[in-house]
């Protein structure tokens, strides 16, 4: 199994506070990897560091031979690491179409085919293309956020809590789409508090606690070992 992304000895500080305390993790090409843990464990900080929005104080982030640690966020997107952030960060004053077009901002090839493709994945957006994105429901906004990220042609799709604030039915729909995207070959890195849902679609999972990785195991093993789930995930 090829490793697409390798994080080694990553430390992240917010001022004097150490939010990530030296973690090693690797993402296998073509797989879904989940990062689980309670609120404040350092998961979102880890993801923001991957995208260059937060700077690591130590360690390396190797993405298919490219060191991402010192790169600016837009350069990281150019290399194919695209993130759907916590809270979705939809541009509410722009239309749905404009949000999607901005997803392909860094691409210089023709994006028309991908525009059509993502609308096939998310047909609901089709009806709202020229309406303000701020008028979409929470579930539609999450779909737009994922569709927008796909417009960048990611080699690695990173998602921070895609299930947050959504009704169970929508969560299932979103996870089904993620599984299908992965079946098409997309590598996915997923942060979730909804541990059971995430473990059901993931191949491998890490558990994070107080800035450290405390567990790394195949997702199926974690799901079957209810003690682990209870101890670390409280679910």
């Amino acid at each position: 199994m090829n490793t697409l992304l390798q994080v080694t000895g990553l430390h992240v500080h917010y001022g004097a506070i150490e939010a990530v305390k030296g973690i090693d993790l690797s993402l296998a090409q073509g797989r879904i990897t989940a990062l689980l843990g309670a609120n404040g464990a350092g998961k979102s900080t880890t993801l923001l560091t991957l995208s260059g929005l937060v700077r690591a104080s130590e360690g390396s982030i190797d993405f298919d031979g490219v060191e991402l640690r010192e790169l600016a966020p837009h350069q990281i997107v150019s290399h194919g690491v695209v993130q759907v952030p916590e809270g979705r960060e939809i541009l509410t004053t722009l239309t749905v179409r404009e949000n999607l077009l901005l997803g392909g901002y860094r691409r210089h090839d023709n994006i028309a085919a991908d525009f059509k493709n993502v609308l096939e994945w998310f047909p609901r957006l089709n009806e709202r293309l020229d309406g303000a994105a701020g008028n979409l429901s929470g579930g539609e906004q999450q779909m737009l956020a994922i569709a927008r990220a796909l417009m960048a042609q990611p080699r690695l799709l990173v998602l921070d809590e895609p299930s947050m604030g959504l009704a169970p039915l929508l969560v299932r729909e979103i996870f089904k789409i993620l599984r299908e995207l992965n079946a098409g070959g997309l590598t996915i890195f997923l942060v979730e508090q909804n541990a059971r849902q995430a473990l059901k679609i993931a191949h491998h999972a890490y558990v994070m606690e107080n800035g450290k990785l405390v567990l790394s195991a195949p997702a199926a093993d974690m799901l079957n070992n209810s003690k682990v789930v209870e101890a670390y995930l409280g679910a």
Partner: protein
Amino acid sequence: MLAQQFINAISLGGVYALFALGFTLIFGVLGIVNLAHGAVFMLGAYSALHAVILLRLPLMAAILAAIVTTGAAGWLLDKLIFAPLRARDAPHLAPMIATIGLAICLSSSVEGFFGAQNLRFPVEALPTETLSLGGIRITWLELQIVLLAFVLMGILMWCLKQTRIGRALRGLAESPKAAALLGIDVEGLFRFTSVLASLLGGVAGVLIALYTNAVFPLMGQPMLHKGIAVVILGGMGDIRGALLGGFFLGFAEVFSVAYIGSTMRDAVAFGLLFAILLLRPDGLFGKATQRRA
């Protein structure tokens, strides 16, 4: 008479709108109240004036010279002031104070170099022909001022709405974090915004200098006050608001001069602004708390 005042109001309002656009762009995209915008406006007027006097350039080339100078000033403004403060996550007041300081530095340096006196464009440099249309007289100069202001505003509005970089700018205005994650070069676009906004201010400076034929170091001060008023009236950071606010002020000034008296001009114009803000504290468009371009 009425039609004549209308023409005057449109040309003055167009220049105010141009100035306010630059001011509101920096607020909408960078989140900074740029109190040096008036000094950049003054710099534009001086550049064009000296391009005409010293380099003997024709008027349109002089305007181009002003665009280059103030665009460069905008680049430096971001490089030396906005970017370092951004990198340090400085609180809102820091860039305000920094730009007040810069404005004072610029106007005193200009005073040191060129003197405090009122400078004028040489008469032969300005077009003097007058067009007469059904009783309305408009000088060729006024016509050029109006056209230039409108063409620039039109191009800007179209670009913001229709182009890739315009979309990116509006996205950045709403959320720098989202913009960065979409692969937008946030730092580069901040700098671009500062350049664009400053050159709009610079062109407004040339146009006002031509309109009033007066260039002096502190000419940016009253303009800055008007610009702030216009932008607050329109709704901070809102492009349409800045345009509408600019024309509102132009009309209020011209019509109060025509029907009430020139000494009352500012009293009437700002009195009206004040009254509107009492009714709509967030300005004509949207919310004062919402940043948008």
